[in-house]
């Protein structure tokens, strides 16, 4: 049983021992930027931004310019009837120092606001304003009202406001319930990626909670129920938001971080690399800054590098080396990395910190990691150039070249030969053969400046070999362009201090004469030939004679119709010469004329207008006419029937 619990405790300790450390720090540059945000808030447009700007500058220890103007602005912008306005104004005047609001007016409003059914925000504004103005606060009344209000309001904002309120009441007040709510509130925070802890993604809310929790804890002299990991995660979240632009957000960042930089319970220790990432023989020292989140000093510390692991193969090159403090800056510590005789590569160094005078507030003391890269100088040796015949009939001529010289004479290559180049790259530090990330052979046509780049590959012994079949590659790479080519060896790597492009030799290459693709590829960067806009061609029309012929053909049936009607004996003689008859026919005719005019000249609206008039007349005439015809017919029918 006891062994089990011991094991469990040890287990828990090892887990806790893998403590979290802050990801970064609020550097002096960041703080200067935040100060600039505060200073740019003037001229102030509203009381809230004035409040945040003034308090922010005070928090960052900067001088508040134009104190008198600020005071006048606050005094003119405050609304004595609103507790919220009084909160902003009173905090600002308190920060400014020699600025006075009208306490009597304020007191009336504030004390009248604490009544039955008051909500938590109002209580917060009232209590804070009264405290800022130095006016008396009835703690018991406030606590009762607060407890009552919290029964119906369980939002995180109100919970945080309760913390702030409780921190400002007298010491004797019983705020145990509110103090214990810190644990519940933290449980509602959202964790992101095991690194950040925040409330609803809201910077203001998170900062407000952090400030309130530690404020109340300080006042009650009891550690807040926040775990060390959680405190570090809050710090990480606030640090991740340090690039904000508005006064309110900047104040939230500054307030939250300065609380975590200086309180009685949790102070996260930040370790960040101060020196350049590159470690070379010229600068062999790795410098780190060990500070609190506000880049402030933490007193005398012992900083140790626990291990340095190489990324490529996991080799550990040092363990348990102490860093020495830098004289001029009490947050800087340095380590001579090349003393470890570490070869070139990317290293992750892990640090741990211990305070000379034990301070239980410091957290995140181990596990901080910093990355450096150790670079080296490269030498290229044993460079051999040779041109071998493809059929291996004659032994190849080998030319040895020494860096940085060039071959004495031009090499001449033909399309039945192979060009082979061998070389070896050596690390100057330990004279071992190495491979580089970029090892290219570049051939540039001296006349046309066209380049072709090949990759040189290394075998298992790190010997680089570049082989070029001159005949086979003629078409694809060289466009069969014979001529003088400059051959450069280009070597580069992240871990090489002296990357180079070295003109090894000049080659005279001769390609087979066929397929003279001598047309120069059009230079892509010169103006292209102009495209002339082609207007839409009109449709192909049939010749006029065809159209006229068909027009005649279509009009032919009219004649046929007239002929047929005459043959049938159309009764034109019976045309009644009455007004309605003539009117009807003339009306119809005029409508047809109107349509012709419509086709030629008029638009639809005018046509409809005239049509209405003519149509009405025609209708009336036609009605009369047809009516009379109908009557005549009926009379005829009746007379026939009799």
């Amino acid at each position, binding site marked *: 049983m006891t062994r089990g619990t011991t094991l469990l405790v040890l287990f828990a300790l090892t887990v806790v021992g893998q403590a979290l450390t802050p990801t970064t720090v609020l550097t002096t540059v960041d703080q200067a930027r935040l100060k600039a945000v505060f200073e740019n808030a003037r001229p102030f447009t509203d009381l809230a931004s004035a409040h945040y700007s003034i308090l922010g500058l005070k928090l960052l220890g900067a001088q508040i310019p134009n104190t008198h103007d600020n005071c006048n602005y606050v005094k003119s912008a405050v609304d004595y009837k609103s507790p919220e306005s009084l909160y902003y104004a009173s905090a600002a005047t308190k920060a400014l120092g020699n600025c006075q609001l009208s306490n009597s007016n304020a007191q009336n409003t504030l004390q009248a606001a604490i009544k039955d059914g008051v909500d938590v925000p109002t209580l917060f504004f009232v209590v804070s304003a009264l405290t800022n103005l130095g006016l008396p606060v009835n703690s018991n009344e406030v606590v009762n009202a607060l407890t009552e209000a919290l029964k119906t309001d369980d939002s995180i904002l109100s919970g945080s406001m309760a913390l702030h309120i409780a921190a400002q009441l007298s010491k004797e007040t019983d705020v145990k319930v509110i103090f214990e709510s810190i644990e519940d509130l933290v449980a509602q925070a959202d964790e992101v990626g095991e690194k950040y802890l925040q409330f609803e993604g809201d910077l203001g809310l998170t900062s407000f909670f952090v400030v309130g929790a530690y404020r109340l804890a300080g006042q009650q002299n009891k550690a807040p129920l926040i775990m060390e990991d959680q405190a570090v995660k809050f710090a990480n979240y606030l640090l991740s938001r340090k690039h904000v632009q508005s006064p309110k957000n900047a104040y939230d960042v500054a307030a939250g971080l300065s609380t975590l930089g200086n309180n009685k319970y949790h102070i996260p220790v930040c370790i960040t690399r101060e020196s350049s990432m590159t470690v070379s023989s010229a600068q062999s020292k790795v410098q780190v800054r060990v500070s609190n989140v506000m880049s402030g000093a933490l007193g005398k510390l012992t900083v140790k590098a626990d291990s340095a692991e190489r990324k490529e193969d996991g080799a550990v090159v040092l363990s348990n080396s102490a860093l020495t403090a830098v004289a001029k800056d009490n947050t800087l510590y340095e380590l001579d990395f090349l003393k470890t005789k570490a070869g070139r590569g990317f290293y992750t160094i892990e640090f741990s910190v211990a305070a000379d005078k034990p301070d239980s507030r410091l957290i995140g003391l181990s596990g901080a990691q910093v990355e450096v890269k150790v670079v080296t100088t490269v030498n290229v040796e044993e460079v051999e150039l040779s041109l071998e015949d493809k059929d291996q009939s004659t032994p190849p001529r080998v030319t040895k070249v020494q860096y940085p010289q060039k071959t004495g004479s031009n090499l001449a290559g033909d399309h039945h030969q192979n060009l082979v180049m061998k070389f070896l790259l050596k690390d100057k530090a330990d004279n071992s053969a190495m491979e580089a990330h970029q090892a290219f052979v570049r051939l540039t046509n001296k006349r046309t400046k066209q380049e072709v780049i090949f990759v040189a590959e290394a075998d298992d012994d790190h010997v680089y070999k570049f082989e070029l079949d001159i005949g086979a590659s003629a078409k694809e790479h060289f466009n069969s362009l014979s001529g003088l080519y400059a051959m450069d060896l280009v070597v580069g790597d992240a871990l090489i201090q002296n990357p180079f492009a070295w003109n090894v030799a000049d080659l005279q290459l001769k390609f087979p004469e066929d397929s003279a693709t001598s047309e120069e590829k059009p230079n892509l960067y010169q103006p292209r030939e102009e495209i002339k806009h082609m207007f839409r061609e009109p449709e192909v029309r049939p010749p006029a004679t065809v159209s006229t012929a068909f027009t005649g053909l279509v009009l032919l049936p009219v004649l046929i*119709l007239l002929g047929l009607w005459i043959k049938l004996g159309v009764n034109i003689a019976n045309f009644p010469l009455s007004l309605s008859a003539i009117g009807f026919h003339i009306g*119809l005719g005029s409508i047809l004329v109107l349509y012709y005019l419509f086709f030629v000249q008029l638009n639809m609206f005018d046509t409809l207008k005239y049509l209405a008039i003519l149509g009405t007349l025609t209708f009336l005439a036609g009605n009369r006419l047809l009516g009379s015809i109908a009557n005549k017919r009926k009379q005829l029918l009746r007379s026939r029937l009799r």
Partner: protein
Amino acid sequence: MATSQANVFTVVSKFYDEYVTTTPQRLKIIDAYLAYIMLTGIFQFGYCLLVGTFPFNSFLSGFISCVASFVLGVCLRVQVNPQNRKDFLHISPERAFADFVFAHIILHLVVMNFIG
């Protein structure tokens, strides 16, 4: 085969004779008009087939004018035919003619608009 050809010919000539004798004159006038419309439509369509559809809207306008006129003519003939008197008790021939004219006015307005 001669017999079937002869049959067709006799049927057609008999039909023609009966048509000439039994159809009242009014209907013959309308029939002549319908034949005229049909010829006009055929000629327009033939032009379109031979020469091309440009301009398409004009062709459509003309052709549809012929078709619609033919339809209206047929309607007039049906309504005016005394043999169909029972079906059109409330529509006198004059009323039919008035409808015919009215429909044509609207048709020609639309055709003139579309002919472009």
